[in-house]
């Protein structure tokens, strides 16, 4: 039997490595509907940040517009956040995270915000590999404007008013794979443990990490036959592996039979342990991930887990070869070149 262990630091049981309790990661009370999948995801963001010992002042929250995009107010009150424009959160996050490379970013979006109005910015975010955890709370419907189809709605889906959706849905994970995203995961708000472990893994990843989380809308799209409903998700969820994240310096032991699990070290030293379930699956094979998603669609399954992982690609911060001091914290003598340099410039144009 093999054992994966982290090292230990002594501390009180209810306090994490940065000296905070779980309640320090809470936000304002949610104004979303009771039972909304988004609330469950907010809880798991709180749990994941606590367990990963994220310093709240080193994390920034972003969102666009929609029910999903209201949720950053409902977690991590001690972190700064920016609720931007509909579909335009990726650009906001890109500028902010380049301006301060010491920040960790979490963006929360929805299926309308990402797959309809925002699909252009979404693809370019991934193409640039901006260091951001990008969570899509995917319910296939516009909740805030009372029940219109989104671009991820099932073909043939019936909404409250009775009309059927004639269009093929956008698969956010396949789009992310096509855009060469290095961390692509799907989960289900009804599987909180997996959601939490995926967020923890995403927090240790230094490029864009996409988490497409099926998050039922109890008001407008929770009919049992909808692939975005609780009932369908519970019946059809098929995790591709059992996942555990061991944060760096964390005291956790995971018992493993030899050959039954893969361990991947993330950028910050945390380790992701992927324990095999029924199927043979290699999350480093991008083509296999696309095939698997297409098979799952045909077989009417909700495949969940870390579909694709490639930690070798440089992030936008690496590509820009940015100074280690955040751009937003540079002193005036760095920001303004010396007078002698301007004399040379004037001479150049004389």
């Amino acid at each position, binding site marked *: 039997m093999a054992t994966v262990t982290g090292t230990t630091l002594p501390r009180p049981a209810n306090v994490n490595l940065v000296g905070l309790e779980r309640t320090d990661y809470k936000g304002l009370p949610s104004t979303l509907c009771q039972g909304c999948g988004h609330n469950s995801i907010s809880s798991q963001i709180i749990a994941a940040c606590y367990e990963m010992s994220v*310093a*709240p*002042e*080193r994390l*920034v929250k972003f969102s666009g517009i929609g029910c999903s995009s209201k949720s*950053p*107010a409902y977690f991590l*009150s*001690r*972190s*700064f*956040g*920016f*609720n*931007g*424009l509909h579909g*335009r*959160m*990726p*650009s*906001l*996050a*890109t*500028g*902010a*995270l*380049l*301006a*301060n490379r*010491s*920040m960790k970013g979490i963006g929360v979006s929805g299926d309308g915000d990402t797959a309809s109005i925002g699909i*252009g*910015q979404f693809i*370019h975010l991934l193409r*640039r590999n901006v260091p951001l955890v990008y969570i899509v709370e995917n319910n296939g419907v516009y909740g805030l404007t009372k029940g219109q189809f989104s671009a991820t709605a099932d073909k043939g889906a019936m909404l409250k008013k009775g009309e059927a959706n004639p269009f093929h849905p956008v698969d956010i994970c396949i789009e992310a794979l096509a855009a060469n995203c290095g961390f692509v995961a799907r989960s289900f708000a009804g599987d909180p443990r997996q959601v939490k472990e995926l967020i923890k893994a995403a927090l240790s990843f230094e490029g864009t990490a996409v988490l497409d989380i099926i998050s039922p809308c109890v008001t407008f799209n929770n009919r049992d036959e909808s692939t975005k409903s609780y009932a369908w998700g519970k019946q059809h969820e098929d995790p591709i592996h059992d996942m555990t994240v061991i944060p760096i310096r964390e005291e956790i032991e995971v018992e493993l039979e030899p050959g039954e699990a893969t361990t991947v070290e993330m950028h910050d030293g945390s380790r992701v342990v992927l324990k095999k379930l029924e199927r043979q699956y290699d999350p480093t094979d991008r083509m296999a991930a696309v095939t698997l998603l297409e098979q799952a669609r045909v077989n009417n399954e909700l495949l969940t887990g870390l579909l694709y992982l490639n930690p070798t690609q440089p992030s936008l911060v690496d590509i*820009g*070869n*940015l*100074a*280690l*001091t*955040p*751009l*937003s*914290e*540079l002193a*005036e003598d*760095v*920001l*303004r*070149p010396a*007078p002698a*340099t*301007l004399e040379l*410039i*004037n001479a150049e*144009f*004389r």
Partner: protein
Amino acid sequence: MIARAHAWAENQLTKRDPYMVQRDNQTEGMILIDGNTAGALGSIYGGVSFAAWYPITPASSLPESLSEYLPQLRKEKDTGRATYAVVQAEDEIAAAGMTIGAGWMGARSMTATSGPGLSLMAEYVGLAFFVEVPIVIWDVQRMGPGTGLPTRTSQGDVMFVRYLGHGDTKHVMLFPATPAECFEFGWRAFDLAERLQTPVFVMSDLDLGMNYWMSDPFEYPEEPMDRGKVLDADDLEQIGTFGRYRDIEGDGIAYRTLPGNPHPLATWFARGTGHNENALYSERAEDWAGNMERLWRKLDTARDFVPRPVLFRQSGARIGLIGYGTTDPAIQEARDRLSAAGVPTNYLRLRSIPFTHDVRAFIEEHDEVYVIEMNTDGQMRQLLQLEVPEHAARLRSLSYNTGLPVSARWIVANVRPGKEG
């Protein structure tokens, strides 16, 4: 070869015309440069750390000049690392979003575009105004509407930019007339944006931006940077209380904290939705009205910070001319000709909106004031009429809009004192 040609001409040709060539030193010490390069250099001496843009004529050479000069001027000597980031975005919407994200984070952040790009940026610019994020936007104007004449010059975005965004928005604008002023406003725009916590527009045009001009050399900024009202953790510890949109000094400018500030009081949530003084969501009528009143107060405060106009006088002048930007050389020449014809003029060259108090005084001083500009409807004249409604009738529009720079001859022909304008 040249010497032989010279000798041949001297022997064989007889001079019959009256023209002479004479050495002159009027360009001594001056530089030859385009406004876009000058604007980029000014931005660099203003400490720009982040720029996002999307290619568009006639603005592209401004961010391209950033990419040319930043590596020379702003790399860490020991590590070779960049103290700046320039991103070519996927469109102007993304360019605006990135610029705002970086400005909110605390970097000196800018973008450059032209009319069609501004149309795409409108939603984000409105958000930046309402959230109060300092950013600098260069509008190198071309002919519109529509795709218009992308390679011709115009001053047609004045009204559009002043109110860019839905709902109640008003923006601070600067109007450079020369490359030296592009350089100066390049750095000054950042001081203004951070002082006022709002988008600041620098209104250039194709003629200034893309053509070469003789210009005074660039002057190094003498003032230290104005980073505006920012509270760090020590400040908050001393003060003991913080609300992002509280008007402590009554000038409409609230204090801000930057992400990364570890003090428990520092955090606030930036939102485009209605908010109270503590940046919390609010639909209360008093909160909305109070916030808008403060924003308008802030725009009034801006009058004390923006560059004042330049005033030129001739003795005995009874009529006034108002211009801005690249109409300046034509106006200067027209004044010489008018004066020679017995019509002396006073001339005020606007350099900013909101208008400083000199502008009202200038209009009050003259019975007739011609506003010379390159758009169809006399956009600046309309804004001046709103500023000084009781003297609206004194303001006459001289609008020239063909895509070519206005000429002195056209101005002279259209300044007709005593006639209805």
